[in-house]
């Protein structure tokens, strides 16, 4: 039900699963479980689960239209799917549009690629990780990041539920966070709403959505220009901050292409690796061949000159003095210069760190948000050192570590796929070829599929695969998504329960739940590494199948099972140990696949049987794996490569005659820049609207689970559209008043819930309020579909990463 796969134990009696508990031997979740984990039985035994393959008998499709499902055999279902997808593949495989949301079995995500379609989007990742993952990968080869629970003493939390209600491996992280707070760690949370992380913090600082960066830029100004306290040694020796930058934004290089630094002893520029560290200038402007050059650090310091707390305060509404105080507390807690010995090795010790996630960076300038938070952490030298801000690898393989240019770690913005090459006309409908340092901007489908000629697309998808994905709920601009789905000649759904989107399907192929299927899972582990086994604890409740088996059977019938095996060989990492390679001529069952997977990683004696007996192979990451895993390589402070990629894209767009494609976010350093959301405010959309989640739910997928929706009902924050009492009084709104929020994209309606814990300019909409397609009565008409307020166009998309703006400006009226 979420990405991270906690270790669990299930009590089973007479073939019936009775209770789920955390596995105390698994250091990932430390025996703990979140509400979703406890409620797994409610999905397994949900009376509304789809337990047999079904086909639609009503040719009409539309919102609220009954598909008139009838049960069919797997043979008939596969026959229909193979016939219809076979026609598409023979015509043009790009015409298959795939929305995939199974974040545990990401090894299956390559299925569309071997089908031949570039059109795979998750409909979710563009919100959360669109800008986040590329920046983590570019800084230290990580996929995510988290502060050091064990050693941090001062934790700034911005727009994130880490350790409290969401994100990385919550069950274990909540325990680690609680332990840290018990030993005295101070938590300061910046959030428009009194989230769990804010309620449990030592201090909650309410701010406006999408302006967190202004708060942090203001604090960076304080550290550099007012307190003049930052970790000079770290910046000079461990980053490229001292490398000299020309006024055109590119690094100064010698004839051999080596980046130059300023040698304070010689008073001249020298190659970065030809100067003793103590003689390298971190700050300053110098002259080279009659032209000004500045260190990368100096360039950002100059950018920050006018980012004063007073100016930033006007943007984010946080008082300037609060910025100054938090900045001072932060730098004092960071103990710049301190070291700590761990297992015989001495590391820098920086027990203060800023942590962040979706709420603070899922915005139209998300690249700048992420860069700002990373650079702020770098100012106190806390990246990947004890107490600080630690990279989290994608999986068991650890950080992506390759030496790049000039002694700097090679930026790895792409870890789930190769960097896409520019192409015009584009192949993909979400234009992945136009985001060389970004993720899949799935939200752009709402524009490209309805106006393909605007983007040079020379075909239109005619079929759709929905695999645990609900684009009608998760994408912005639902009305447009409905138009897109109405154009599909054939839709196949692989899922567990019916959703808003699967009601548009022609065939429904029911998947096992996680309590009926196999998987070795290791994804975004913060403090640990290693795989936990998912295995059947009961026989399948219905006539369902494992998604791997379903996709393999379709591949078999369409004649590309050999390529499917080869794809799995690559994504499962069997290429590193060829004796485990799948034979392209042979079909493998799901148990065989995971057996090979386990043995290929842990050795011949640790196949599926070993995991069945032991449950997991999870262990704590060693200090060497956790702290400075890239050794002496520097990390980027000045992101020249982003500017270079932007210039390259500009040239390519000009070559094909596309002159207006936005490229303005390809900048080497972050600064304050208004987004379209700010501009919408000037156009009369007075308030902000945000959505939020708690540990109860993932992706709104779990909202239909009766146990969880019952818990949600008892929480005031899920009782309606949150509004501050001051604002409520001005608008004549009370709890229970029906109100309408209208953004430039659309409107939603719901009952107001007046609460103190939200910024007066913000309206909050829980993701736990409702779903339109209900499988139990508890979700009916309690609230609103927030994503209708969002816009999927480039105006609301980060032009470099493809990350989506997830807040909206709204007008509010009583209805």
């Amino acid at each position: 039900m979420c990405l991270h796969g906690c270790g669990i134990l299930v009590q089973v009696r007479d073939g019936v699963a009775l209770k789920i508990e955390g596995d105390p031997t698994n250091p990932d979740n430390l025996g703990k479980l979140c509400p979703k984990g406890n409620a797994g039985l409610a999905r397994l035994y949900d009376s509304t689960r789809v337990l047999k393959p079904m086909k639609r008998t009503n040719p009409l499709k539309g919102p609220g239209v009954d598909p008139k499902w009838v049960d069919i055999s797997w043979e008939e279902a596969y026959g229909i799917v193979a016939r219809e997808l076979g026609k598409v593949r023979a015509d043009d495989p790009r015409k298959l549009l795939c929305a995939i949301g199974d974040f545990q079995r990401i090894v299956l995500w390559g299925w569309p690629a071997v089908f031949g379609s570039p059109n795979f989007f998750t409909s979710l990742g563009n919100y959360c990780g669109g800008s986040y993952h590329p920046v983590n990968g570019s800084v230290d080869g990580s996929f995510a990041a988290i502060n050091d629970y064990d050693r941090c003493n001062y934790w700034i939390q911005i727009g994130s539920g880490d350790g409290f209600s969401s994100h990385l491996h919550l069950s274990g992280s909540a325990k680690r966070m609680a332990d840290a707070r018990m030993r005295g760690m101070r938590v300061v949370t910046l959030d428009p709403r009194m989230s769990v992380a804010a309620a449990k913090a030592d201090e909650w600082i309410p701010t406006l959505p999408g302006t967190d960066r202004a708060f942090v830029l203001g604090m960076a100004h304080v550290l550099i220009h007012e307190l003049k306290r930052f970790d000079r040694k770290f910046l000079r020796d461990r980053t490229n901050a001292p490398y000299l930058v020309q006024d055109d934004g590119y690094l100064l290089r010698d004839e051999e292409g080596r980046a130059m630094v300023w040698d304070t002893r010689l008073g001249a520029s020298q190659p970065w690796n030809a100067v003793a560290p103590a003689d390298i200038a971190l700050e300053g402007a110098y002259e080279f061949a009659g032209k000004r050059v500045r260190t990368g650090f100096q360039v950002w310091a100059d950018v920050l000159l006018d980012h004063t707390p007073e100016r930033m305060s006007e943007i984010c509404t946080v008082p300037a003095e609060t910025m100054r105080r938090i900045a001072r507390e932060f730098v004092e807690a960071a103990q710049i210069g301190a070291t700590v010995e761990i297992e015989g090795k001495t590391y820098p010790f920086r027990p203060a760190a800023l942590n962040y996630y979706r709420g603070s960076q899922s915005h139209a300038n998300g690249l700048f948000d992420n860069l700002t938070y990373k650079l702020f952490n770098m100012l106190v030298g806390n990246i990947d050192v004890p107490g600080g801000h630690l990279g989290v690898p994608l999986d068991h393989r650890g950080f992506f570590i390759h030496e790049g240019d000039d002694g700097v770690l090679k930026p790895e913005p792409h870890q789930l796929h190769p960097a896409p090459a520019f192409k015009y006309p584009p192949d993909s409908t979400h234009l992945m070829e136009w985001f060389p340092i970004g993720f899949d901007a799935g939200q752009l489908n709402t524009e490209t599929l309805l106006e393909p000629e605007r983007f040079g697309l020379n075909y239109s998808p005619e079929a759709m695969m929905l695999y645990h994905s609900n684009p009608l709920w998760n994408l912005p601009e639902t009305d447009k998504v409905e138009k897109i789905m109405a154009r599909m000649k054939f839709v196949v759904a692989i899922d567990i329960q019916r959703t808003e989107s699967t009601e548009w399907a022609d065939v429904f192929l029911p998947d096992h739940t996680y309590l009926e299927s196999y998987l070795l899972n290791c994804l975004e582990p913060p403090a640990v590494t290693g795989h936990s086994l998912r295995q059947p604890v009961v026989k399948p409740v219905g006539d369902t199948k494992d998604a791997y088996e379903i996709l393999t059977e379709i591949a078999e019938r369409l004649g590309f099972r050999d390529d499917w095996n080869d794809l799995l060989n690559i994504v499962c990492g069997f290429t590193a140990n060829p004796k485990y390679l799948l034979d392209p001529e042979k079909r493998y069952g799901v148990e065989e696949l995971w057996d090979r997977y386990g043995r290929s990683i842990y050795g011949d004696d640790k196949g599926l049987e070993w995991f069945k007996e032991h449950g997991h192979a999870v262990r704590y990451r060693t200090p060497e794996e956790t702290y400075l895993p890239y050794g002496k390589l520097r990390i980027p402070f000045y992101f020249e490569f982003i500017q270079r990629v932007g210039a390259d894209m500009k040239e390519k767009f000009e070559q094909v005659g596309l002159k207006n494609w936005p490229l303005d976010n390809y900048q080497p350093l972050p600064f304050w820049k208004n987004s379209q959301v700010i501009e919408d405010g000037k156009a009369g959309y007075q308030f902000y609207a945000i959505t939020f989640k708690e540990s109860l739910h993932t992706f709104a997928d779990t909202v239909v689970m009766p146990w969880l929706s019952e818990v949600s009902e008892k929480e005031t924050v899920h009782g309606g559209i949150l509004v501050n009492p001051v604002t409520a009084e001005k608008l004549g709104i009370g709890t229970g008043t029906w109100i309408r929020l209208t953004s430039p994209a659309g409107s939603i309606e719901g009952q107001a819930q007046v609460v103190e814990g939200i910024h007066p300019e913000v309206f909050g909409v829980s993701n736990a309020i409702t779903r339109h397609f209900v499988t139990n009565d508890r979700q009916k008409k309690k609230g609103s579909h927030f994503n209708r307020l969002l816009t999927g166009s480039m105006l609301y998309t980060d032009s470099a990463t493809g990350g989506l703006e997830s807040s909206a400006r709204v007008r509010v009226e009583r209805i």
Partner: protein
Amino acid sequence: MPAANISALGATRKMLGFSRRRVEFERATVAELLRGLETLDGRSLYDNLVCEGRLRGDFAIVVNGLSLKSDQLNKPLQGGEEVVTMAILRHLHGG
């Protein structure tokens, strides 16, 4: 004569017409090994995968578990290596 085990995946499998084979070689670099592998179109695998001396960006070669950089085709082979050739699926993505 030294020999390496070749595993060919995806497009390279279709070029060569086999998925796994033990191949003997005389001159001991990856480049020479590729030159000795004839594809179904009559050219060598080297000619299919290499452009101006560098491995094309849409292919990858793994030797004993380590992926070669595009300019490492002159890596010497001793014999007994496990060599995997594959096309990179540009469309393998998501997030």
